[in-house]
């Protein structure tokens, strides 16, 4: 009588473990636009005028060879972005050209690509060129001195870096897509203000601002003092509770069943 019960318990635990250890589904397929997303048909020409897009929103724009095209997209902690672009040439080019897609964060710091053809060169006979850049996972916090990717605005710049001069100004069709993968961050720490640039015109101060009280943290309410859902405190407490319950269950399994 006892053995089957224990076996069932062990089987349950094993099944639970396998279930928990199962890897998240891999996303190896080619990035596709989100269904129903409105295509963007514009592009900015500088950091300040970058056209805002969202992940999964396709961009289709006509441009001239030699234009510097800018887009910006928001990123949150835990996400991993992939930028893919296709530039097609309706008119033949006279020579080889090198195209590049570069990504910058809200502070215009260059971001590394972990994968993708960031700066491909195509010869004169090519009708199109495909570019790609996979970014690092966005961290929820990083030291001010580090260059880690943080939540906020990211800029994409698409341009041609090398080409024969007569090809400048010829029409090109640009297609671009930014996809986001992953959600939520397991890092500790939080960036108080995301890296979103402040676009308003600056003001030159005439004299040093007077000494003032340090910005005091608002008195945190009871709710603010509670650890956030998903914090280490909550996970560990839940783990302790589960361990206690499992202990009682384990103890109960070894008891001789009562005779009716």
């Amino acid at each position, binding site marked *: 009588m006892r053995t089957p019960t224990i076996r069932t318990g062990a089987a349950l635990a094993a099944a639970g473990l396998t279930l*928990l250890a199962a890897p998240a*589904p891999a996303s190896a397929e080619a990035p596709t636009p989100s269904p129903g997303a409105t295509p963007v048909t514009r592009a900015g020409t500088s950091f300040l005028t970058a056209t805002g897009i969202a992940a999964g929103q396709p961009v289709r724009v006509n441009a001239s060879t030699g234009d510097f095209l800018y887009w910006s997209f928001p990123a949150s902690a835990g996400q991993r972005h992939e930028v893919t672009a296709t530039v097609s040439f309706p008119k033949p080019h006279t020579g080889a050209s090198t195209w590049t897609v570069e990504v910058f964060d809200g502070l215009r710091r260059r971001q590394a690509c972990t994968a993708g053809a960031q700066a491909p060169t195509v010869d004169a006979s090519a009708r199109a060129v495909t570019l790609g850049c996979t970014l690092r996972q966005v961290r929820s916090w990083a030291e001010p001195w580090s260059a880690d990717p943080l*939540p906020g605005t990211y800029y994409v710049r698409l341009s041609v870096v090398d080409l024969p*001069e007569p090809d400048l100004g010829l029409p090109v069709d640009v297609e671009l897509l930014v996809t986001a993968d992953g959600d939520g961050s397991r890092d500790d720490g939080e960036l108080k203000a995301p890296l979103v640039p402040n676009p308003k015109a600056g003001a030159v101060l005439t004299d040093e601002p007077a000494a003032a009280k340090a910005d*005091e943290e608002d008195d945190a309410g009871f709710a603010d003092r509670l650890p*956030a859902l998903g914090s280490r405190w909550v996970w560990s407490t839940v783990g302790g509770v589960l361990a*206690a319950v499992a202990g009682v269950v384990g103890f109960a399994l*070894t*008891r001789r069943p009562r005779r009716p």
Partner: protein
Amino acid sequence: MINKRRSTAVLIGLLAATVLTGPGPAVADEETPAEPPKVELVLDVSGSMRARDIDGRSRISVAQQAFAEVVDALPEETQLGIRVLGATYRGKDKKQGCQDTQQIVPVGPVDRTRAKAAVATLRPTGFTPVGLALRAAAQDLGTGATVRRIVLITDGEDTCAPPDPCEVARELAAQGTKLVVDTLGLAPDDKVRRQLLCIAGATGGTYTAAQSADELTGRIKQLVDRAQETYTAAPTVVDGTTQCANAPLLAPGVYSDREAFSQHRWYRVPVRPGQELRASASVALDRPVNLDHGVLLRATATDGRELVRGSDAGSGRTDVVSAGLRWSATEDGTAPSPGATDAPVPATTVCLVVSNSFAPRPGTRATPGMPVELTVDVVASSPAPAAPDLGRGWVLLALLTLAGLLTGLLVGLLTRWWVATWRQH
């Protein structure tokens, strides 16, 4: 992803807690500039526009059709002006012919019928005073707090230099008002292309070679629309100094300045304890420079000690080279003790210095300096997380549960064995 969602669901179920996680990226508050977007189209009506080489039609008729379509599709709030050059003087006197530029539609709310009629009567006539027309167009657009755009459409190089149109463009860009010149070449040859590329590069504009009516119309429409879509307040012009002590003191916002080759420009920013300084600088390559280039942005204390630096370098064709940095005041000194927060705390002054490692090509003009765009922001600092020695994740839960189960089983078996032994005695 799925794991995370599952974990959240389970945790909600277990705890029924309603504490929210951190906020998403905030959207910066948009400020609508006080002025409507202003664009001026500058059309070359010189004799060469008679050439019939665009889809079998004359260049001027293609341009006229394009203008009519653009005027019809003009966004409501955009103020459009039209200036022509080489439209009236039929003589051979170069001096007189090179003064030939008129504004046929003043910059303002557009009367579509009148504008189209004015364009339809144009006949290709005279010289090509591009430089003069650019200067006049900049005056037409006036000064103000927003970016102005000029769209220059021409088929031939300037026949009236001096003034060299590219020098004029650089000079206009260096003046207070932010001005962008987009250029369109109608069936351009090498010389025209180089000249238009130079004008566009000097002002941060674009260059397009239009070889069909559709291309021309589509591009002008796109540029006029872009004037409205990407219409932003122009950055505040500031004059950086050569040392920190007398540098301008900057509040958060966007600034523009000029920096010559191997020049350093200093600025100061006040940062209070508990605040984080964020700055970025972009230096534009508005003239031919050597292949390799770089930008360095450093933050130093007033005594010259370096706090942090940001840099970027590159090679080849590009529009701007940018660098950015973050620096947090609380990391530097001692954290304010809880009792002392009532006392006034003076702001720390941080010096910012922008330098570049561009090298001019032989013959490249050094003045005015290259455009610098500086953004400064001061936000709440993000202290380093104080992580407790605790765990997180499903593996941890499974491990704890398994350990609990095994302990329970072991204790249970031991108890049974002990009770059995005790009964026997």
